[in-house]
């Protein structure tokens, strides 16, 4: 039986949910206050990463990784996925111990995708790295993809399956109606049997309306990119005890990020870069890759992302109303999970038990939270 579904938010997770729900014959409308991929989904670092994930996310990340191998089948576009591998490097002995502990933890959970590499192996894989690094934790098959291309591929696949997109219109109100919902968006009103909250940094407002407030913070992870440099790097590099994500694209440009935060101007709904964090990021890069001292930064930017206090998403049915599903708060590492989040949302929406353990992502973990105002 075909249901009417309204998805709020045309980011990666909203578009992925739209693809999976429309594939099952449901009538889906996606509403976005700007356009698909305007914020975090379109401007993130594009890391396709299982390495270093919260244990609760590992089963999902493994399943998503399997989808990434065949993205052309899933969304009709390879999304520029490059499985060049990812390595988290240790800068000192303490870091190395942290990584060894991590390897033990992952193995205890029954996974073997993350493994320690020695100083020599590290040198071999990343010759440009400063020799003081005593080792690293590697994950083969991880890599990166093009974020905007990915969100666009999801959106276009959804459109091919008949999903309608309403862009440039903000949802301004919700009203329970029978067993479903009336969704007000500017002057338009949409009727839905099922409502899906994929509103990213703006998801908290919907939760307030649904009487289940969540401690969501809108943050602005910053990125910067260099001019084209001679190829010197294969895998994506992260640091162990400092924020860093560092990759060189095929065109030679180097993308630097990994969690340093800019500022969110909530009135203008834009993210601003701020110098202090970028300079810290530059320091980290210079200690790992000293030859980058003269590399020129041509651009910096930031995107607005929803971050939860425990750094894992909300991916669950509403605790207060029937026929509402939440998928938000991916806390600056949701890019890789997009192929699987939509499958899970589709299962939840249809009352099926998802094939993956999602209890840790329940919105009920924030029960008792009261928003400040």
């Amino acid at each position, binding site marked *: 039986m075909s249901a009417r579904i309204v998805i709020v938010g045309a980011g990666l997770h909203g578009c992925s949910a739209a693809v999976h729900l429309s594939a099952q014959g449901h009538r889906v409308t996606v509403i976005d206050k700007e*356009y698909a*991929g305007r914020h975090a989904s*379109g*401007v993130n670092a594009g890391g396709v990463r299982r390495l270093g994930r919260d244990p609760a996310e590992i089963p999902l990340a493994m399943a998503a990784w399997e989808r990434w191998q065949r993205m052309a089948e899933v969304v009709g576009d390879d999304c520029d996925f490059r499985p060049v591998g990812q390595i988290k490097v240790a800068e000192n002995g303490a870091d190395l111990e942290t990584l060894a502990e991590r390897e033990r933890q992952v193995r205890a959970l029954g996974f073997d995708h993350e493994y320690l590499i020695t100083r020599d192996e590290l040198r071999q894989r990343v010759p440009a790295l400063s020799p003081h690094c005593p080792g690293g934790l590697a994950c083969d098959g991880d890599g990166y993809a*093009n*974020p*905007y*291309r990915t969100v*666009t591929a999801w*959106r*276009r696949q959804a*459109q091919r399956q008949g999903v309608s997109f309403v862009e440039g219109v903000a949802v301004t109100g919700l009203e329970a109606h029978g067993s479903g919902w009336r969704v007000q968006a500017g002057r338009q009103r949409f009727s839905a049997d099922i409502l899906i909250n994929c509103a990213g940094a703006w998801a908290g407002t919907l939760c307030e309306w649904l009487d289940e407030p969540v401690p969501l913070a809108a943050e602005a992870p910053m990125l910067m*990119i*260099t*001019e084209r440099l001679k190829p010197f790097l294969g895998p994506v590099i992260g640091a162990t005890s400092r924020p860093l994500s560092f990759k060189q694209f095929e*065109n030679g*440009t180097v993308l630097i990020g990994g969690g340093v935060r800019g500022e969110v101007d909530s009135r*203008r709904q*834009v993210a*601003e*870069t701020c*110098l*202090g964090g*970028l*300079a*810290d990021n*530059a*320091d980290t*890069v*210079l200690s790992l890759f000293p030859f*980058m*001292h*003269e*590399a*020129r*930064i*041509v*651009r*910096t*930017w930031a995107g607005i992302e929803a971050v939860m206090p425990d750094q894992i998403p909300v991916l669950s049915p509403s605790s207060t109303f029937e026929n509402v599903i939440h998928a938000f708060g991916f806390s600056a590492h949701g890019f890789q999970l997009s192929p699987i989040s939509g499958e899970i949302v589709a299962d939840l929406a249809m009352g099926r038990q998802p094939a993956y353990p999602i209890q840790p992502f329940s919105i009920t973990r924030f029960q008792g939270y009261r928003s400040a105002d």
Partner: protein
Amino acid sequence: MTTHDLVILGSGPAGMAAAATAVAYGITALVVDEQPAPGGQIYRSIESTPLKERRILGDDYWHGKALVDGLDDPRIDYRPGTTLWQLTRRLEVGLLQGGHASMVQARHVILAHGAMERPFPIPGWTLPGVMTAGSGQILLKSAGLAPSAPVVLAGCGPLLLLLAVQYLRAGIPIAALLDTTPAGQYWDALPLLPGALRNSRTLLKGLGLLAELRRAGVRHVRHVTALEAEGEDRLERVRWQCGNDPEWHCLTTPLLLLHQGVVPNTQVTRALDCAHDWDERQLAWQPRRDPWLATDVEGVAVAGDAGGIVGAKASAMQGQLAGLGAAIALGRVSEDKIHGEVKRLRRDLARETAIRPFLDVLYRPAVHWRLPEDETLVCRCEEVTAGEVRRMAEQGCRGPNQTKSFTRCGMGPCQGRMCGLTVSELLADANGQSVAETGYYRLRPPFKPITLGQLATAAEDTSG
């Protein structure tokens, strides 16, 4: 971080006049300019040009001398060779001088960084040996340099004519001036001529340039409708068609100078996220300003061509107006007290700019010069063609920020200066939208590239 009452970006006519006006009210001004010497593009190298013979660069050029002399004031901290790489909405100013990056705090900012040349994407425009006319003029003014072999100038607009005459007077041979002004435009501009006569001095000067080229026997080819630069590794030939004539003409030349007008350089006002409007007559974006030339960002004004093309003299007048605005904003004078002076200034400004509608219509680049064929490169840095931009529109890209995310178009070191207008117009055309709806790139610091090492040291200014 040191605090400055007034930071002025640019030491062209607008910036120099703004500084001179503001210091008269007891304000100290920090004037920064990327160039090694004051004058802006128009009065470039006025203190050092080897072309001392007044006749070559013309009387208007030497007019700048008085403005430049005004910079020599103890209350003006003039810093040449200084690049603005960041300006925040809180008026934190990031500067780069002699390889050292620093931050200062401003209480008021006047952006007077002028115009840039409109992109002129033709087949082969990326070949070495093809330059903008502006670059050709820089070579002439600063070094007196130019090739000995005959050069070809192509395009339209007053600057192209002026450069042709300046080259002529400097004894540099001109193989041809290929004029791309569409045939009908002389008639379109005619009704605007009476208004333009309010500034008949500029009008006569333009006619004088044309006459001088004719007297010198420069080959002036009109109604050029197609233009290509060709060569293996560098420019060897220029080919063109005229009117509806299918025949291609060809000239061998080592240097082709292209120009189809100037547009405001909106990189900084875009990065500040100031409101901008699309000016259909000038076919360019302009920051939205109040009568004091203030933008919608508190404490930031824009004077001169950076706010809309007005020319050097009007730019200096706008500089004065913005300087007075700064004096009011900083509490150094009341608006009532300078009422008469401001009224006179606005009247002079109206007279000086009366010629703009006529020039804008006469030298409006035809649509096919702004929307190139599919094979022509649009984004030089990331090598994106017009056809790729059109295909992205088919795939659902509504605006240039989406195409940027898709192909990095506009994300290279030039930050979209060379492709921004073209991409906006291509997308507007392909999507059947107005350019205003299509929008422009969101700009982000650094405005000019800085190294990771410099970035790391700049932060030391802000800590503590």
